[in-house]
């Protein structure tokens, strides 16, 4: 243990603790800006500087460790003066017309500026000129970038993709896509983790709210909304609702108030995905066992983009099943259009996703089941949903629980857990067990694949057949797994991959809380909902069964293939 004094207070912490953590342990907050725990501890912004007795230089608290006998002042006059100057310097290169910024109210720079009472700005504001590609799902506004390097580090250390890089030199050092190319020409998976970790409004998603509202306001158009499983874990965060209060039914109320016609649930099509993908898996199993190469899930569009550039030779190992979002779109514009007895062109399908890559997925040239137009017309991230609700001045406490519309609002617990890492695998195994044995397993029989580990593996036996499965989340973990599979060091039958660490609950489109970790809390919501659902098996979803009975016939049928499966080789990634 190390003994030190912070602000005249005796502190005892373990050796190796940073000054920042030591101060936190006794309730002293040292402000940070560029700091991202374990990912970006580089002391770039110099906001977390503190005074250490014996050193005439201030010391950054985020990446310097405590020493025996150290005497630290976190808010001395010198510290306050320097900290304030440094924030003013950062502001001198930041477009702080906050009123126009999507991150206003949720911006770490704005927050620290307010806390430090910046007041006057003595420096000229000189922002980097920004060439913004506003049509791409993710874009960067250089005039707001504060060069904290978080995006570079997240893409390097968590996702191991190295899309972002340092550009230019000296005082002109900035961030750009590696090799100076445009983001749309890069191998970027569009996972959005850089956006989710940007402390300011420099990295953001394309805002498609306007297009959704145009459809709402068009009297001839029927708007259909699908809400992804992970949305229910996070949508209320922006409205200040607790996890218990922020039900999907309250969200349905809000969306109805805005004027959307039908509110459905992507968990429905997640159940459908399980029927298709589970059946496909059992179909492919003999070949899988023989080749010792697994089948991979295909529901995460970041992952599909990833495998196409990083392991193109493995693309054929993906399940051909479309993602739940796209299955929903296909069903909404065929089966559901038929139920409503309207032309598919009259239906406008909006999906609410925790994901930035889904925006691209809905644009894929070969993804649509309908001849004209798109199956999913607009994809909104959870953050856009938040902005939409704010636009309508919707107050959380005025919302009541409203039932989802039917039949596409019908879902099981299995469909809901898709939003967490391991959820797809667990749901698939529940139904695969049934498909093989014609009996249901214990609903929680496959819970070994739950949890936050980046690379989980489990072995199960179904009717005498051993199944080796793996679940990875985060693309850095994915690369390790893929390399192990390629080397032959890891042999699995079925592998679930999610681009974002922790799965969709931590998706790149979810609400941003700088420095806070919401993954566990959000994950708990999903497993809680699964537990209390009377239906916990995708193959028991009555609406899905009815859809097969009256329209699709059976999993992997000709119609199913046409509507619910896709060719991952049918489109190209850049380069």
């Amino acid at each position: 243990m190390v003994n030190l004094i912070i602000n005249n207070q005796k502190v005892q912490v373990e050796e190796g603790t940073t000054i920042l953590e030591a101060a936190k342990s006794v309730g002293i907050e040292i402000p940070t800006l560029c700091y991202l725990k374990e990912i970006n501890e580089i002391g770039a912004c110099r906001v977390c500087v503190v005074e250490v007795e014996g050193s005439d230089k201030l010391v950054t608290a985020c990446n310097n460790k405590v020493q025996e006998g150290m005497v630290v002042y976190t808010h001395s006059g010198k510290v306050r003066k320097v900290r304030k100057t440094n924030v003013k310097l950062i502001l001198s290169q930041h477009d702080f017309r906050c009123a126009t910024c999507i991150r206003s109210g949720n911006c770490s720079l704005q927050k620290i500026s307010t806390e430090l009472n910046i007041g006057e700005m003595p420096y000229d504001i000189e922002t980097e000129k920004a060439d913004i590609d506003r049509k791409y799902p993710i874009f960067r506004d250089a005039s707001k970038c504060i060069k904290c390097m978080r995006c570079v580090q997240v893409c390097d250390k968590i996702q191991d993709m190295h899309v972002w890089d340092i550009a230019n030199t000296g005082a002109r050092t900035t961030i750009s896509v590696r090799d100076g190319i445009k983001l749309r020409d890069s191998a970027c998976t569009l996972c959005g983790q850089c956006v989710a970790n940007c402390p300011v409004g420099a990295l953001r998603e394309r805002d498609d709210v306007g297009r959704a509202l145009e459809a709402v306001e068009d009297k001839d158009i029927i708007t259909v909304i699908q809400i992804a499983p992970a949305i229910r874990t996070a949508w209320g965060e922006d409205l200040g609702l607790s996890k218990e209060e922020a039900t999907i039914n309250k969200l349905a109320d809000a969306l109805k108030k805005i004027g959307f016609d039908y509110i459905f649930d992507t968990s429905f099509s997640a159940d459908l995905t399980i029927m298709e993908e589970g059946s496909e898996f059992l179909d492919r199993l003999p070949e899988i066992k023989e080749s010792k190469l697994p089948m991979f899930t295909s529901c995460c569009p970041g992952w599909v983009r990833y495998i196409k550039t990083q392991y193109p030779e493995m693309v054929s190992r993906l399940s051909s099943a479309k993602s739940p979002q796209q299955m929903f779109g296909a069903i909404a514009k065929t089966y559901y259009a038929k139920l409503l007895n309207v032309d598919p062109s009259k239906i406008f399908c909006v999906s609410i996703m925790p994901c930035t890559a889904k925006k691209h997925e809905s644009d894929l040239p070969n993804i649509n089941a309908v001849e004209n137009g798109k199956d999913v017309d607009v994809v909104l991230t959870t953050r856009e949903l938040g902005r939409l609700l704010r636009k309508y001045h919707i107050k959380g406490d005025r919302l009541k629980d409203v039932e989802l519309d039917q039949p596409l609002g019908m879902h099981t617990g299995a469909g809901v857990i898709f939003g967490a890492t391991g959820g797809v695998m667990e749901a698939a195994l529940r139904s695969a067990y049934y498909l093989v044995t014609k009996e249901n397993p214990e609903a929680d029989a496959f819970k070994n694949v739950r949890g936050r580990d980046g690379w989980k593996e489990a072995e199960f036996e179904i009717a005498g057949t051993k199944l080796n499965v793996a679940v990875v989340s985060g693309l850095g973990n994915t690369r390790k797994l893929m390399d192990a599979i390629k080397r032959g060091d890891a042999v699995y039958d079925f592998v679930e991959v999610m681009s974002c660490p922790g799965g969709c609950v931590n998706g790149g489109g979810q609400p941003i809380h700088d420095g806070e970790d919401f993954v566990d809390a959000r994950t708990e919501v999903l497993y809680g909902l699964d537990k209390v659902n009377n239906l916990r098996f995708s193959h028991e979803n009555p609406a899905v069964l009815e859809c097969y009975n009256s329209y699709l016939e059976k999993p992997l049928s000709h119609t199913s293939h046409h509507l619910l499966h896709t060719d991952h080789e049918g489109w190209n990634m850049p380069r």
Partner: protein
Amino acid sequence: MSRLSIVTKDKAQITIEALYKDLERRIVASPPGLCPVDLTSAFIKMCLAQTCGKCVPCRVGLKQLSKLLDDVLDGNATLETIDLIELTAESIYASADCAIGYEAAAMVLTGLKGYREDFEEHILHNRCISNAKQSIPCVALCPAGVDIPGYIALVKEKRYADAVRLIRKDNPMPVVCALICEHPCENRCKRGMVDYPVNIRGLKKVAVDNAGEVPIPACAESTGKTVAVVGGGPGGLSAAYYLSLMGHKVTVYEQRKKLGGMLRYGIPNYRLPRERLDADINAILSAGVEVHTEVSVGKDISMVELREKYDAVYIAIGAHTDKKIGLPSEDEAKGIISAVEMLRGIGDDEMPDYSGKNVVVIGGGNVAMDVARSSVRLGAETVTIVYRRTKGDMTALPEEIEGAIAEGCEVAELMAPVGIVMDKDKNVTHLTVQPQMISSIRDGRPSVRKADVPEKQIPCDLIVVAIGQGIESKSFEDFGIPVKRGAIDALNSNEIKDVKGIFAGGDCVTGPATVIRAIAAGKVAAANIDEYLGFHHEITCDVKIPDVSYDNSGKFGRINIPEREASDRKKDFEPFELGMSCEESCQEAGRCLRCDHFGYASFRGGRTEKW
């Protein structure tokens, strides 16, 4: 009113004079990997401050140049901007009234010649072609990439054995390098911005002097693969060490009686005592290296045999043949020998007696200093180092030259040897030299030309020629290994194009260089031979590096390694260097700015923990 007054400096002038010194040190300490275009722009801004403001090209032209350079850096330029920069600079160069203007323009023109593609890259892609990356300066400049901040921190904590362990991760000859490394690591030490570069070699010496015997790490499981290393010098031994750690069975073939190569047969005992050299060699051999001495590859065993017998071969034969100076009668004269010949004898402890002799040494490199200082120790009456250029142009380390002078050697600079005078028995009696004069600058250093004065004769009994070494590449060339200008033609990976399984590196590829470059080549060879054999062993070190401390405020002088008095040390071949005290080494180590933690390193370019 007085008619004249004494010019005195005011406070501002005195202050700025001091800042000039700071700037000089700062330029010396410039981190490696900076953007040349950005620097050019900065230089021009300084020149702009120097302009007197009278003439147009300098006053206005430099300002415009500065603006244009900024345009390039800011992404506001087109390729035509480069033409405009060139035109402007040429005009300033041609028409500025004084050097402030035309030399500033010359810098830009030189830059345009030297790194035009960098300008273009900035204009076209808004980035630097060199992809400038500020790594840890000392580590970046050490050819072997030794973790210098790491071991300095360990020395500061008096963890000497751990320091040796850490050094060995990248360099298996810590003792040798502590004594004779040219320490390129110190060249751009960031501490130079504060006061002076840290005495890195001195601190390494403290580590090896106090560590005692440090066992090497355990070797990996045997791979069953065999590697032959041709040449038992620092490069061959380094490769042998790492390959053994990786689990391969290594056999070293050495043509001389003992291992060490130039370390033993080129460097005299007073600089590198034999028992210190043997300490490193023994540690390396403890990894299980097999050694065959007095076996000459090409004579006693053929390359064909080696290739057949071993899974891979590393050629590290060094550069051991002497170069002739080309004077008339050089071959027939008695009393003219090469530095290689002289030092080789000393290496095998065959000490000649130079008592009463007048020795002339031809050359200005470290080897010339070695033979000069050895001659003093062998009893020579006088030792004169004859060099064509000036002392300042000598390639030997300044401390070596100073050491030689302190021990009584004379330096006859600006003297070109042109002939030998012999007595009737063909014994040399004089070296005839033609005095030279300093002339124009060529390739960055002053060239010399024949001065219009008569030749001179320097009386001598012995002439030692130390003007470089060649490589004995014949038998390898015969085997089919490409040789270019006498050196083995190997790639930067030490592989040889189109010859599978044979690697070469060190002096025999680069020509005579330094020990640390040979060691680095051995390390590269080990890594690539391991890959070639189908493995990916990693060399690591589990020594925990001490945390940084925050008490490094204040400026300090640099503590140099104390030496024995010249009058005393010149009498024997015992080591001439002493060591720093513990007190001194702690202060010196405390000056390290820990670039492994502060600055760019915490983001990128930090510690390489394995290779």
